[in-house]
């Protein structure tokens, strides 16, 4: 086994859900670990831990990213939006309600990441086609729904929130 190499802690300042955060952390630890363990923001889930499943999707300066693969040092000065912040907004509520209406939540583990992915999709494209929806959520695995209900949710959110997007 390779010997463990120590990394000195650094101070990272960023904006989490519209609030400024300053934290002393190991620079290579993931944003996901920082959110869940250091900041006790546990809406963002850990699935695979290597960028394949999308359970840890968050917005980084408005762009969808996998929080498990983002070292916290790269978050210095950035704006992060997680489900905790998004659900406070009208757009966030629109996506959440659409998922509930379409029965796109079963076990719920993928749902926080899925809400962020649907939000990112609709922010970029207010009237996506089915193919665009499927492409938008292609990095978010769901083992319950078979995706059909989540695609429906995207359509509902686009229609019901027509004035929002």
């Amino acid at each position: 086994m390779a010997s463990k190499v120590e990394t000195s802690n650094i101070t990272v300042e960023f904006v989490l859900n519209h609030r400024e955060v300053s934290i002393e952390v190991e620079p290579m630890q993931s944003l996901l670990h920082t959110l869940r363990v250091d900041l006790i923001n546990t809406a963002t889930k850990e699935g695979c831990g290597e960028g394949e499943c999308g359970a840890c999707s968050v917005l980084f300066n408005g762009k969808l990213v996998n929080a498990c693969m983002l070292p916290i040092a790269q978050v210095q000065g950035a704006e992060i939006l997680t489900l905790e912040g998004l659900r406070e907004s009208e757009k966030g509520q629109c996506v959440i309600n659409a998922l509930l209406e379409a029965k796109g939540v079963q076990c719920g583990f993928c749902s926080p990441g899925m809400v962020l992915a649907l939000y990112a999709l609709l922010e970029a494209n207010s009237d996506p086609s089915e193919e665009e929806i499927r492409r938008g959520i292609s990095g978010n695995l769901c083992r319950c729904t078979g995706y059909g209900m989540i695609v429906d949710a995207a359509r509902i959110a686009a229609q019901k929130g027509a004035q929002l997007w």
Partner: protein
Amino acid sequence: MVSVYRPTTLTEALDHVALGNVTLFSGGTDLMVQHGVRSGIAPQFDTDVLFLDAISELSHIEATQDGLCIGSECSLSDIESDDQVPEILRLSVGQIAAPALRNRATLSGNICNASPAGDSLPALYLLDARLILASAQGRREVPISDFITGPGKTILKADEILSHILLPKVDLPQLFYRKVGTRAANALSKLSVAGLAKVVEGKVVDWRVAFGAVSPTVVRCKELEQLLIGKNVAEINIEAMVEQYSEMIHPIDDQRTTAKYRHQTSLKLLASWLEALRDV
């Protein structure tokens, strides 16, 4: 004690690499996995880490007199969504992983990883991409086919950073791209075939093909391509071309598929690319 640096200018970054023994880190989507990020555990790096993602001068795609200049910190999403970028490259990067990953991963990372299955590479070989390697001493420009020397191997020196990717202007309106993977998203390629051509009034003015994930590096053969130039599309002997390329493709068995499947499928795709020319 390992330290991390996140400079905002190329000059600062080059001063750091001049000291040697640092890991260059852009989007990190491969590095984090390679260095063992997992639940509750930070990835372990045994050298200092130099983050390049905050260098804004490397985050632009600019048209130049000779073509296009892509900064090394542009994400795959930046490339996918910019209509100045040749379509063959946009198509290729658009099939890498999934949106969240493409928002962080970079084209320069895909190049420097030098994976035989790097999906941007066949398009870059077809486009005769050139790379700018910067160091504190100056810069050199090399064709991508000279840069990658084997799986995971490049000629990048310890004090250099790949700063820009240059794409010469081309007028090649016909294109072909097939990535064969287990699923549409988040799958590494079993193999890929990319083609570009210009056919005017049934005559081949230019024709190119490149194969990914079937040899240690991308397979492109300019000598074989020359055989088609000037030919009438109806005269192309598809079987003979397939036979010639068959000799050049040396795939391996691995966890994704077999050598036999890679060999056969890439040649079938070559045949369909040649057939497609007849419909132009």
